[in-house]
């Protein structure tokens, strides 16, 4: 056996095989992780909600419940908290089929009206308009915010639906939302979509939601 001095580092075959191995392994691992993740982000069922089983993406019937967003010390960040029954457009007994239909209409609406090209959903999209991930929980739509009064509605969902149908009538900033021809039914679906999205576990994004002007010391004390 002749042992001449060789340089493996400059040998094409070594790098070809390394490239093939690294790519193949990474791709295989990605596929395994995808299966695992798919299982975890499948939408939950109505039964899960009734039994209090936490799912990363709850069922559509989460619109029947109160949703909050609170710090979880165990996980180290804020998490959505699904509470007791709460009326949504006057009902807290939306059946799984009805809720699914509303959610579907809303999701299609969010695509058909191109929301993502002004807003961000789960932080992804365009940066012209606010992030909609926790819009359902946003103080602007709550009792102390401007929209209830401006739209003359009693509930958050009605205010949102009214706004969506005539956005440029309710400006809060010079950067206005245009009229996109959203119908009353579509508006309801969109609000259901927003309420559902706020119940998704985003690993704590956005952080310190709603907490203003806190210094580091104050945050730690909280």
């Amino acid at each position, binding site marked *: *056996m*002749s*042992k*001449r001095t*060789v340089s*493996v580092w400059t*040998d094409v*075959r*070594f790098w070809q*095989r*390394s490239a093939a*191995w*690294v790519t193949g*392994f*990474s791709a295989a*691992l990605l596929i395994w*992780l995808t299966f*695992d993740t798919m*299982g*975890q982000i499948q939408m939950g069922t109505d039964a899960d909600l009734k039994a209090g089983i*936490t*799912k*990363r993406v709850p069922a559509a019937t989460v619109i029947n419940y109160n949703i909050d967003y609170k710090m979880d010390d*165990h*996980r*180290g960040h804020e998490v959505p908290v699904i509470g007791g029954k709460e009326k949504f457009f006057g009902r807290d007994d939306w059946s799984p089929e009805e809720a699914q239909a509303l959610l579907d209409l809303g999701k299609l609406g969010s695509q058909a009206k191109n929301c993502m090209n002004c807003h961000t959903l789960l932080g992804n999209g365009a940066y012209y308009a606010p992030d909609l991930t926790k819009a359902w929980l946003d103080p602007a739509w709550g009792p102390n915010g401007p929209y209830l009064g401006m739209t003359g509605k009693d509930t958050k969902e009605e205010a949102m639906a009214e706004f969506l149908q005539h956005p440029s009538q309710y400006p809060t900033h010079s950067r206005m939302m245009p009229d996109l021809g959203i119908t009353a039914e579509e508006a309801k679906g969109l609000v259901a979509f927003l309420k559902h999205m706020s119940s998704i*576990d985003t690993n704590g994004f956005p952080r310190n939601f709603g907490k203003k002007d806190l210094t580091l010391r104050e945050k730690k004390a909280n």
Partner: protein
Amino acid sequence: MLFEPFTDIVPSFFGTLNQYPLLLTIFLHTVIVIPMFWIYSQEKERLENEA
């Protein structure tokens, strides 16, 4: 923040490895790099034995 143990919602193999600081990373990088040593020595042998 990444240097504290977490508990994710659903236990899984990767979630478990993810519990300890950098364990998941070190595990994966090791698994990827070790076979490259084997490829290296195979190629070295092949090159040395080529006339």
